[in-house]
């Protein structure tokens, strides 16, 4: 971890430093990413379903 002059100056402000140094922050990142990717994947499948319906009813496309 690089330490900038600004962080040295304000080192007494409490931050989640131990969560970061222990590496457990990556667990949180992984969890949030799984949820986000899951939702994006679901959105893609919805998009495809709508596209399939539009092919069956071609006039519906503007």
């Amino acid at each position, binding site marked *: 971890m*690089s330490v*900038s002059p*600004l*962080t040295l100056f*304000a*080192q007494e*402000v*409490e*931050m*989640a430093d131990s969560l970061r140094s222990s590496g457990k*922050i990556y667990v*949180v*990142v992984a969890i*949030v*990413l799984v949820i*986000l*990717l899951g939702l*994006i994947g679901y*959105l*893609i499948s*919805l*998009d495809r379903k*709508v596209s399939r*319906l*539009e092919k069956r*009813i071609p*006039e*519906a*496309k*503007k």
Partner: protein
Amino acid sequence: MKKQWWKISAALLLIYSVVGGLLFEVPRLNIVNETIRALYFHVPMWFGMVAMFLVSTYHAIQYLRNSQSIHDTYSISFATIGLVLGLLGIVTGMIWANYTWGSPWHGDPKQNGAAIALLVYFAYFILRGSVANQEQRSRLSAVYNIFAFAAMIPLIFIIPRMTSSMHPGSGGNPGFNMYDLDSKMRMVFYPAVIGWIAMGTWIASLLVRTHLLTEKLEELEDEQNS
């Protein structure tokens, strides 16, 4: 996969904003501490909401100009997603306020303004639901939509700036004044804003397409019945 590049970029920008938002270095500030990272997720909700409402109002004006039902469809779809983003913004703000200000609803001008703006937009949906005639509904709600957007501007952008607010960055600019100095935060914040606007547009476009399909199916059913 033609014309789909912006959907992929929306997904990539949001993935980047989650990784960067949780891992990149942020300024060490008293009171907000680590919750400064909420800026990457809470504030893009409001930017997204305003963008959605702006598109909705644009199509409301277009509808009043040429009475094409496609503009009404766009207007309601974007207003719906705007309201969803606004609700997410207010809920995330309440979670943050509970731990930083001591209570979820602090009566801060930013909170009150946002709540009234959302109520104004709730009325848009109530108005739509209360008019049976389709053409009347489109016309009335288009007029109201323009009023709602005009009411939202002072409620969200002007009044909180005129009074003292405890919201981070207040005292002049109630958005992100105190983070403005930190260019590292901007490198995550702006991609997050663009990502959420694109994501909102994507979901709204799906709403538009299902609206159009429903209309077409109803037409086909009418033909069969006649």
